[in-house]
């Protein structure tokens, strides 16, 4: 009734090409932004930010990154954890090496460094594909984590082998270190998640995104119609790693405060982010957010139910969580291979025709 394009006439190509062509969608989007940026910061508390919101935004950025590579360009990667580690450690080196430069710049630069590393590890994708590539990216995962554990230059020769984020401020408000207010942590994560989503959304519907999708759908045919596979694959690796690097930098500097490559950025991280995009929806920016939300909320929810309500031991709940995550993956692949994003699309389509279904 209210959710349709009828009567909403566009008078310019720009208006016709906008991300949300339906007016209701557009206003909903603005409303969410207003709530996210102007209302929630005054309302959030420590628990909400630390348990749900901050990891949600950070994982969403990582999921956007992996979705560009896997969902849009069709190159499966199991090295996300390793690339997050690159972001974290380069952010740490920049923070300690240039203390006077803004932390925001450091995080973006950390993304840039990760993009370079990601491109190097993306080179084999020109020769190999499918699960061969997936296994090849495992090399990146294990090698990078080993590198950060063994070469002490990366953690400034500290005795513990850990990296600790020093205090840095944005507009005189601390955003890293021990004295971070919940709302500051929330806002900086939201800021990066928002801009990552906007950039990724616009990249994927432009020329670059179309070449990625052509490569994903059939690389030989894409090559024949003039898509340069070298450029397409390497840009996908670079841009994907850029986002993953930013999320790794945020994860270490803002969220954890202290990290160790093997614990914080192990192979499990790679799997979790991969699961997020499978459940959320391959090839969808909204899906990255939906998948991240589900997999961040699920453990918290299970802990609330299992440990706090029933008083079960924590390890038991952790095992149940493994079973549920595994089941979810299989269920989504069998029943709805396009994930939560597809359910959302179907719901919108239904709503567009409501209340007259024809």
């Amino acid at each position: 009734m209210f959710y349709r394009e009828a009567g909403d006439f566009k008078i310019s190509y720009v208006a016709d090409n906008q991300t949300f062509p339906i007016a209701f969608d557009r206003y909903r989007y603005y409303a969410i932004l207003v709530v996210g940026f102007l209302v929630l910061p005054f309302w959030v508390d420590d628990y909400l930010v630390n348990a749900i919101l901050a990891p949600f935004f950070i994982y969403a950025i990582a999921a956007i990154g992996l979705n560009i590579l896997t969902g849009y360009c069709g190159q499966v990667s199991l090295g996300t954890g390793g690339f997050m580690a690159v972001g974290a450690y380069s952010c740490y080196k920049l923070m300690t090496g240039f203390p006077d430069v803004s932390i925001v710049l450091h995080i973006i630069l950390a993304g840039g460094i990760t993009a370079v590393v990601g491109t190097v590890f993306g080179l084999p994708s020109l020769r190999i594909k499918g699960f061969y590539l997936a296994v090849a990216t495992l090399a990146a995962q294990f090698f990078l984590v080993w590198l950060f554990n063994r070469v002490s230059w990366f953690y400034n020769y500290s005795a513990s082998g850990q990296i600790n984020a020093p205090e840095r401020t944005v507009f005189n408000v601390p955003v890293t270190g021990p004295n971070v207010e919940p709302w500051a942590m929330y806002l900086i994560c939201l800021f990066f998640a928002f801009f990552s989503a906007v950039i990724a959304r616009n990249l994927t519907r432009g020329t670059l995104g179309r070449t990625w999708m052509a490569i994903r759908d059939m690389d030989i045919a894409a090559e024949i119609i003039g898509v340069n596979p070298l450029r397409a694959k390497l840009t996908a690796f670079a841009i994907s790693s850029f986002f993953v690097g930013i999320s790794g930098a945020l994860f270490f500097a803002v969220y954890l405060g202290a990290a160790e490559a093997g614990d914080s950025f192990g192979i499990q991280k790679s799997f979790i982010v991969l699961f997020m995009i499978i459940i959320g929806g391959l090839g969808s920016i909204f899906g990255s957010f939906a998948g991240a939300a589900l997999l961040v909320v699920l453990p918290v929810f299970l802990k609330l139910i299992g440990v706090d309500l029933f008083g079960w031991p924590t390890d038991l709940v952790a095992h149940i969580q493994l079973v549920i995550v595994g089941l979810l993956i299989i269920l989504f692949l069998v029943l709805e291979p396009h994930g939560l994003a597809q359910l959302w699309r179907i719901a919108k389509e239904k709503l567009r025709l409501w209340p007259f279904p024809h």
Partner: protein
Amino acid sequence: MPDQVLFGIEVVINGLMAGVLYALVALGFVLIFKASGIFNFAQGVMALFAAMTLVGIQDGQVPFSHLINAIFGTKIHHFGWEVHSILAILVTIVVMIVLAWAVQHFIFKHLVGQEPIILFMATIGLAYFLEGVADLMWGAEIKTLNVCLADGVCLPQGINGFLDATTFNWFGYGLFIDNLDISATIVAVILVAILVIFSQYTKQGRAMRAVADDHQAALSVGISLNYIWILVWSVAGFVALVAGIMWGAKSGVQFSLSLIALKALPVLMLGGFTSIPGAIIGGLIIGVGEKLFEFLVGSMIGGATENWFAYVLALLFLVFRPQGLFGERIIERV
């Protein structure tokens, strides 16, 4: 002979033994991949699952006891009996066959015709699921696995005294070879022989090879794909059990088992996904390669290179020969 050379020889022999264990896991991958085109990421977890089930049955643990205790507030852990190894192995084989049926019936039957990469992701989900179920059933603590075929005839542990003494007499340096590694090699040889005989001389084995060659042709001569796929997953489950016993006896039955099994992936990439000899030779190359690299170069660059060497070797190798050493040539058609 100088000690360094002898030490190097010892490293090579130990690498060969470790390679046999990698090859055991890789075999299961190849079987499933050849027959159904599914790249079974869960093979390592299947080995863990099989080993945990074996230990649990042997020790007479009550399955899901933690869950039951948590829900009903009871305190049951053991039935109070111990099961003989052979019987326990048989029961575990039955469990693996049931698992094979369930995997085929509930997952891959519904995914026929999907892209290989989707199937691959489904097996990652399966790996998580199985890991959770295994932990729920038998508990996540590290278990020791002792397999005894009869009274006093157990899987041997520890250094082989005979080899040690002989080499010491000959060269003045005793080679340190684990008894378990030797028995693992023997078991692996027997297993491969059984697999070869099974696939060459039995009706089911021939059907399996026919399906591996061409699904549709096999279907048209009356071979039931469903049956063959369950069979293949069962055989892979059996191979996983053998691998699980060997790994479990070596380093305890624990979660890291499934991570060690990840090493089977570079083994496959070296050997080619479709070749059983490739899996074995790839395993040996990776085993020797990573031990030698650690011995020669590792100490110079910080050690623990075994974590990544196999993957990087496979990665470099793939750039030059994408189908692996023995894999079929990849031909692409549009």
